């Protein structure tokens, strides 16, 4: 990987490590401060495992007051803080710094209240996304955002990254599904934003915090909205002879007034990779494969499936399969959900990109990716959350070959730049973190970035909270890392990524 620029190390902090650690041990329980090499090693990286850095120490506070005291002390002593949820983030947002205290929310792992009357759940930030649904599903409710890592990722991390998922086209991302948070600012101020009501009055600070990648405050409690499960969920698996046909079908489905709960496209390379990997039974002759999921009442879903099938036929579909039961629906998804590991099995390494593009530009962008694939002589497979335009190209390469690694990085950066050129954005759901930091100026000019930095400064005057993330350090559009997986040594190899 390229050398990563990080904020200047404050040597006085390193020199004062013993004093700082002993002070932290007086603020919180002794056993909740980790400072030995072996203890802090698990925290040296998140799921962007290409970058590793041990922090000065790790603290595991148990309550909001402790978080507040730690932040207040660190603010006074000018010590940097890196907040961390489950560490499943793909953009390096929780990468430590050697002169920083890593603050893990791992002990904030309880669901505090299940309020069916007000259709919400109050949870500590370390609670996993999926366990919220598990806590309410006996009454037919669920929490809508479903990032692929939902088994392990924490709800606090979801708020920090504004996580999405397969169903965000219909149900929105985290920001559309939370009602409130408790937050601690860098100076130790504890603040409640929102509550159990819809919307807030005044500045939408909840909206600002959501997706702020741990730069503005440490989230210590989250109130999420829960929804009643739809009566029926069914999926349609459609093969197309060209990627253009698939792209046109997406546009026509949307134009016809249908909002599917999920709509995914895979290109030929990925159809073959996933079918080899997990025998998904996908039509291997297709150049593009689409999964459309529809939910709602029984008759509505039936009607929509007919409409979608008609549109698919009009767009030259070569095969259409409709799920007859839940087992079959899940089987349709099995291959798509195995996309990342399937690529991992095909090459020693792969890079996963995360751009969003206007849906109608799909074939244009995929053509460009194909061209670049030839230019760099590197294979690429494409998974696409077609409903909301979120594209995940997976570039396959061998990191032991330095020249290939360099080419891959260039290839990745060119893809993201093209996404922006096509009217899209750098990141749809993985966050900027350290990964796309230097590409921010592809999307924003100096005024735009300065305004965002002013907001940061207004809440964190000394720039101590998660510094070096999101905003360019080099102040030029460098071409840096993507999600890099070497020989399947992914940080969370068991987590599905799609």
């Amino acid at each position, binding site marked *: 990987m390229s050398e990563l620029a990080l904020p200047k190390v404050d040597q006085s902090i390193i020199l004062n490590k013993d004093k700082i650690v002993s002070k932290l041990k007086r603020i919180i329980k002794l056993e909740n401060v980790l400072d030995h090499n072996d203890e802090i090693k698990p925290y040296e990286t998140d799921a962007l495992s290409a970058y590793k850095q041990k922090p000065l120490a790790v603290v595991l506070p148990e309550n909001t007051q402790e978080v507040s005291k730690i932040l207040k002390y660190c603010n006074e002593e000018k010590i940097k803080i890196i907040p961390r949820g489950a560490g499943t983030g793909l953009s390096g947002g929780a990468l430590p710094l050697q002169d920083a205290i890593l603050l893990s929310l791992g002990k904030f792992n309880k669901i505090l209240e299940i309020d069916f*009357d*007000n*259709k919400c759940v109050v949870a500590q930030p370390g609670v996993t996304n999926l366990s919220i649904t598990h806590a309410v599903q006996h009454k*037919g409710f669920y929490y809508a955002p479903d990032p692929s890592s939902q088994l392990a990722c924490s709800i606090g991390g979801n708020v920090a*990254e*504004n996580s999405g998922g397969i169903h965000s*086209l219909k149900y*929105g*991302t985290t920001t559309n599904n939370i009602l409130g948070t408790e937050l601690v600012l860098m100076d130790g*101020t504890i*603040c*409640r934003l929102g*509550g159990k*009501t*819809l*919307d*807030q*009055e*005044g*500045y*939408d*600070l909840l*909206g*600002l915090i*959501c*997706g702020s990648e741990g730069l503005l405050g440490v989230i210590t409690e989250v109130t999420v909205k829960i929804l*009643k499960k*739809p009566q029926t969920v069914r999926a349609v698996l459609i093969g197309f002879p060209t990627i253009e046909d698939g792209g046109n079908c997406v546009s*026509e489905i*949307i*134009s*016809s*007034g249908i909002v599917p709960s999920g709509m995914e496209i895979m290109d030929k390379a990925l159809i073959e990779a996933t079918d080899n990997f997990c025998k998904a039974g996908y039509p291997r002759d297709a150049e593009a494969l689409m999964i459309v999921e529809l939910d709602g*009442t029984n*008759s*509505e879903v039936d*009607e929509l499936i007919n409409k979608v099938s008609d549109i698919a036929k009009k767009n030259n579909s070569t095969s259409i399969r409709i799920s007859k039961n839940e087992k079959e629906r899940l089987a349709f998804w099995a291959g798509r959900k195995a996309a990342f590991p399937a690529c991992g099995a095909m090459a020693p390494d792969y890079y996963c990109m995360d751009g*969003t593009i*206007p849906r*109608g530009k799909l074939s244009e962008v995929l053509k460009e990716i194909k061209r670049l694939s030839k230019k760099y002589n590197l294979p690429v497979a494409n998974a696409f959350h077609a409903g*909301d*335009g979120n594209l995940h190209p997976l570039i396959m390469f061998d990191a032991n070959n330095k020249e290939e690694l360099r080419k891959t990085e260039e290839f990745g950066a060119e893809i993201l730049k093209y996404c922006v050129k096509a*009217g899209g*954005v750098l*990141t*749809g*759901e993985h966050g*900027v973190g350290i990964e*796309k930091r230097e590409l*921010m100026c592809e*999307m*924003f000019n100096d*005024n*735009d970035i*300065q*305004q*965002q930095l002013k*907001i940061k*400064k*207004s809440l964190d005057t000394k720039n101590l909270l998660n510094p070096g993330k999101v905003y360019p350090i080099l102040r030029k559009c460098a071409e840096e890392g993507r999600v890099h997986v070497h020989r399947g040594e992914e940080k969370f190899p068991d987590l599905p990524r799609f």
Partner: protein
Amino acid sequence: MSIEVRKNSQISQDSDYILRPDNEEKVSQIIKDLYKKNLPTEIIGSNSKSFIGNKLQCAKILDLSKLSGIVEYLPEELYIKVKACTPIANIEEVLKKNNQQLSFEPIDFGYISSSKSNKGTAAGCLSCNFSGSRRFKSGSVRDHVLGFRGVNGKGDTIKSGGTVVKNVTGYDLSKLITGSFGTLIALTEITFKVLPTKDSSSTLVIHEDSKEEIAKLFNNIQSSSNEISGSVFVPIEPNNKKYIQNREKIFSFNDLKNEGPFLAVRMEGSKKSIDERIRDLTIELNLKNKKKSLLDVHQSLLFWERINNLEIFSNTQNSLVRIVIPPFKCIDLMKYLNRDYKYYIDWCGSLFWIEIPDMNEEKLLNIKDYIIRLGGYLTVIKNSTPLNDIFTINETRLHISKKIKESFDPKGIFNPGKMYRSV
């Protein structure tokens, strides 16, 4: 003094009192000058909602109404990009041709201020973040703003967001400026997410008076998987001369069989699906023995339009407040209001619009204290008498809001004190 009167009275004194730029560059130049001269400025669009918020006394008026027109509309991409002060009515008209809509149902404040429709501009709609009946299902204005361009208090042109829904590139400033009442930025361009309009709609009206039963119905409707897209309760008006009795006239529909209080439930979708859901809901809510009416698509559309036009409060001279509470607390607030106030409940129990005669500081404080205890917030929309603290905020959030304000508008020249006296 109304803005119109002020405009006229000041023009003779200061020909530059009202500044009317017609493009973003001019907005930026003007604000750079205002910043340099430290001149407090009121930002206006079409004035449809200028009565909301604290009264302002500013050196200048920045009238952005010339920034009007559709920049780009791509129905298949589900977005529309407009110049900031494009009338909402124009946007809705264009969307309608493609069977699309602003799903948050913009509120029409025209009826309470001038007895006729005036939905104002895109920027005004965004700045207030007041959403209609579909909010509890589809989200509010803030959930439908994909991106914007605007000029901050120093005169710098900035942008945030984009045209795509899934976007986590940088802070989500679209959310932050939505509901900021023009105190952070002079908007020049807005991109809204748009959604398809459903084929048909029907409204099931349940004639019910018991507060406990209403609260129970709201709760069960929220737990239903029948995709309800609107649910309101309209009680009868207090028998009191302080209120204009217009409920009966406004909700006079051929198929609305009973004149008493009612709870209405909207379903949207295909005709077949609606019929199925009505049958299902009747069983689910145990409505077999209740008096009911069913409004067909034409009556249903008109019914919800009148709800979201606040027509029930047309021509009122009383104060009007908007209260949002956790939905299950609606029973408490209904009991608190008793039959003394004219009100209706939207968002399936969460949103109360209440008309209050003889408003004064003490009355407002009492109600606000109670609402805060319920975990909600209150905004005075229209006040018959000058009032302090017409928004709800606590010390910590005020402290943070001041910092945010400074980061956009360091000299505090945009709509100073519009929301909170010190912001």
